[in-house]
């Protein structure tokens, strides 16, 4: 953190100090809105926090200050909202830009009705970013960005202990630091962009039992857990992008290379008390291992388009990716058994395992496109090659496969709307993972029309069919996403009212029967969402009103639910510079198969806004 802060200071120190003072004649302009909010939640408070995590308290609704090229924006400062954003942007000298951005996101997890009622957590992620750019050279622009991200908090989750699931508590303590340097040429016939980043991620293990008792009712007690392990990952990334264009052709290509290294070392241990016939024995597991892995990833792509004749374009795309990972785990694993009488027995095993994983993807696609007036059509073919070579002793997968496919589509874009359709078919001859679809057909249709007088209708459909032979996996997978909607907006500058109706159906059927999960039916993920939104904004004299109401109802087979959200805000313009407002919000969430995570929440408050001119 100190290094980051120092680096940020150095960036800003690099800018001529005298130039950091805004012009004397320029006044500050902008606005600030401060509010205080209260709320009441009935039902599951934890569920409301998981989905929204709003609280009572003070909040800076927004802050925007500007003077010359200097701008400060902020929102969410305070504890009432889970996010916070602040940014300072300035142009401190001719040809220089600089900015500092800070984001904070608070998260909470606690659901009683889910399949993991024991998994809970609360944490926050802080993100800092400082950026500086220089465009004073005629031949290239430069920029430098520094990022620092940290995650703090804790989580409890089921963990496999002594032949049983126990609850482990882990304090989160992660940091990520990154520096990125970019140079983009301006005057060369071929525009080149070189980006170089250096990233380090560091995670410290800090664990303890969240509860001594096993989730499954086993009498043995989870009495201790410790970790001194630190995992560090470093991955520099280099990328070169080149683009060239003329009246008849455009070509872009890029190449990326990232050699990543990770190393984790330290001791982790856990301890269990064995209870039997009134006496207590003890079992300890102590791992002292070093895990190291190196991964060399390279990726490249080439995209080109030629204008063959007026209206006719040929487009070629080629992508390649190669990731090669070698890893090893060495050290000792100790099992210590302590009898009730105090005697103990140590069983030590040495670990020396190595793994390799290599995946290589190559693909190419060629398309011929035609466009005239409001119509366009395209068609083409693609081919792809994937090879996976995976070795985790004693398992070994070494498979290559080749896929081919075709695509065709057409679109119309008129003054009152657009409609498009595309069909894609692909297949391959060898499996790598058994659930990969052997043949896939995909149809996408979309239309949107502005009917007039404020009315708009739209529709969208995406249909996928994938078939696998019974001999391989027996998966007959289909997925469809359909949505349709209509909206009306009346706007005359002072008043806006509108209604949006939407219907979306998402259904994935795998034809895989899971006796314990769905005894009579194959695995289905089925959502049928009906969304209704009404909104309005109006002003009358010194009063301004805005509000919205939205209802989501899911009638699908998977997890039907209904949720409501109402928002309203009334503001009174006190003077040209001041505005006083009150707001209210209401949420209602109802899962039909369980009431454990249902909630009903009301939030209200006042805001004061000043305009600075």
């Amino acid at each position, binding site marked *: 953190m100190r290094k980051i802060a120092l680096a940020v200071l150095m960036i800003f120190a690099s800018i001529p100090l005298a130039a950091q003072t805004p012009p004397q004649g320029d006044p500050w302009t902008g606005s600030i809105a401060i509010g205080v909010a209260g709320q009441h939640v009935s039902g599951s408070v934890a569920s409301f926090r998981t989905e929204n995590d709003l609280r009572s308290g003070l909040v800076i609704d927004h802050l925007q200050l500007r003077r010359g090229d200097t701008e400060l924006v902020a929102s969410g400062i305070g504890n009432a909202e889970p996010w916070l954003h602040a940014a300072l942007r300035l142009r401190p000298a001719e040809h220089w830009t600089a900015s500092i951005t800070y*984001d904070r*996101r608070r998260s909470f997890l606690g659901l009683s009705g889910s399949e993991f009622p024991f998994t809970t957590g609360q944490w926050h992620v802080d993100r800092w970013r400082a950026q500086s750019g220089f465009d004073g050279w005629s031949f290239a622009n430069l920029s430098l960005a520094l990022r620092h991200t940290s995650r703090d908090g804790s989580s409890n989750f089921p963990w496999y202990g002594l032949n049983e699931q126990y609850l482990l508590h882990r304090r989160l303590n992660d940091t990520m630091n990154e520096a*990125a340097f970019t140079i983009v040429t301006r005057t060369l016939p071929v525009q080149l962009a070189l980006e170089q980043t250096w990233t380090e991620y560091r995670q410290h293990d800090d664990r303890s039992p969240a509860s001594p008792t096993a989730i499954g009712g086993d009498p043995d007690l989870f009495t201790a857990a410790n970790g001194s392990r630190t995992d560090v990952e470093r991955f520099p990334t280099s990328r070169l992008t080149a683009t060239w264009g003329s009246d008849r052709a455009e070509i*872009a290509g890029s190449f990326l290379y990232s050699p990543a290294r990770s190393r984790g070392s330290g001791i982790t241990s856990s301890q269990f008390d064995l209870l039997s016939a009134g006496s207590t024995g003890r079992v300890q597991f102590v791992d002292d291992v070093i895990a190291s*892995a190196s991964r060399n990833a390279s990726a490249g792509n080439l995209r080109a388009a030629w204008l063959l004749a007026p209206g006719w374009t040929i487009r070629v795309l080629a992508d390649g990716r190669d990731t090669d990972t070698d890893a090893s785990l060495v050290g000792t694993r100790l099992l210590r058994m302590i009898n009730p009488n105090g005697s103990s027995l140590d069983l030590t095993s040495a670990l020396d395992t190595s793994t390799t994983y290599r995946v290589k993807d190559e693909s190419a696609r060629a398309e011929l496109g035609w466009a005239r007036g409001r119509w*366009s059509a395209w068609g083409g073919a693609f081919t792809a090659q994937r090879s996976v070579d995976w070795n985790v002793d004693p398992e070994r997968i070494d498979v290559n496969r080749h896929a081919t496919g075709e695509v065709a589509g057409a679109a119309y874009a008129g003054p009152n709307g657009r409609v498009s359709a595309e069909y894609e078919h692909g297949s391959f001859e060898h499996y790598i993972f058994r659930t990969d679809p052997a043949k896939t057909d995909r149809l996408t249709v979309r239309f949107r029309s502005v009917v007039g007088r404020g009315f708009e209708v739209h529709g969208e459909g995406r249909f996928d069919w994938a078939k696998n032979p019974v001999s391989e996996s027996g998966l007959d997978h289909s997925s469809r996403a359909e949505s349709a909607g209509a909206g009306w907006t009346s706007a005359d500058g002072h008043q806006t009212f509108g209604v949006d109706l939407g219907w979306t159906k998402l259904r994935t059927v795998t034809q895989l029967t899971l006796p314990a999960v769905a005894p009579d039916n194959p695995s289905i993920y089925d959502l049928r969402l009906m969304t209704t939104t009404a909104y309005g904004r109006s002003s009358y004299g010194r009063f301004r009103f805005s509000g919205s109401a939205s209802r989501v109802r899911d009638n699908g087979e998977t997890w039907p639910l209904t949720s409501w959200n109402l928002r309203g805000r009334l503001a009174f313009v006190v003077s040209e510079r001041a505005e006083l407002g009150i707001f209210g919000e209401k949420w209602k969430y109802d899962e039909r198969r369980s009431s454990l995570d249902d909630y009903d929440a009301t939030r209200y408050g006042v805001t004061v806004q000043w305009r600075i001119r």
Partner: protein
Amino acid sequence: MITIVAAWLTLASPALLPAQPPQNPAAVAKAEVSTVPALEECAGCHDEQSKAFAAGPHGRAMARDAKALERSCATCHEGSQAHVQNPSKANIRRLPRDSACASCHATESRSLLLGMPAHKRSGVACVDCHAAGHLAASGSRQVRTSTSEACMSCHKTERAKFELPFAHRDREAPMSCTACHSAHGMRRTARLSLLDRNGACLECHTELAGPFVFPHAPREAGGCLSCHEPHGSTNPRMLTRHSVAELCMECHTNVPHDIVSARYRRCTGCHSAIHGSNGDKRLFDR
């Protein structure tokens, strides 16, 4: 890192290399056309728009090149010369063509054709998402509304998914649509493409970047979307199925457990290092 900054200071020091005013060939070429009306002429009738344009981001950027600013109205509004002679709605192009935007924003325009032809084919114009220079924009980069609202006005299925209980719902920084997607089809920058694939996810979920001694193979080959639905799900972990067992057992059909028991249906209750483990090949968290 300190070394990088020091190198940066050396490279970018204005004292070492004399700065030159930026040259935009398209803007210069247009500025040399003396027949188009100047901003002051247009302001004679459109005073409010002219002032708003000059104060807005386009105006401020063009102010660094006085000639470009002077001819800025004609850059976007075709037919301006005839319109000055005979002011009429019929002889002026009210909304600029994409080619007008591309005269300055050439890179975005080029990538639209090469990398994201779907937007191009569907007739999505620059001004469908971006406000013109003299209109107030509520989003960054002169987007008409918030970035997410602009995207979701067409992508309704994704909009519906965001209404599900568990979603990347903030919709604004740091989780707006453009945090993961590139609307212009430009390839992600190196910083975001940490591994080329999964790059957008790992931007925030860096702890899952690996490499791991024991990776979860489908994740390595197929990426995060093998299991996760990033827009919204009924599963708290944003999986593509409602329950963990339904998802895991599509691949792992021959598990050596009695899955009638609820404890064994919570697969990640034991296999908690599901993204990859540095301690156990069964993906236990050791």
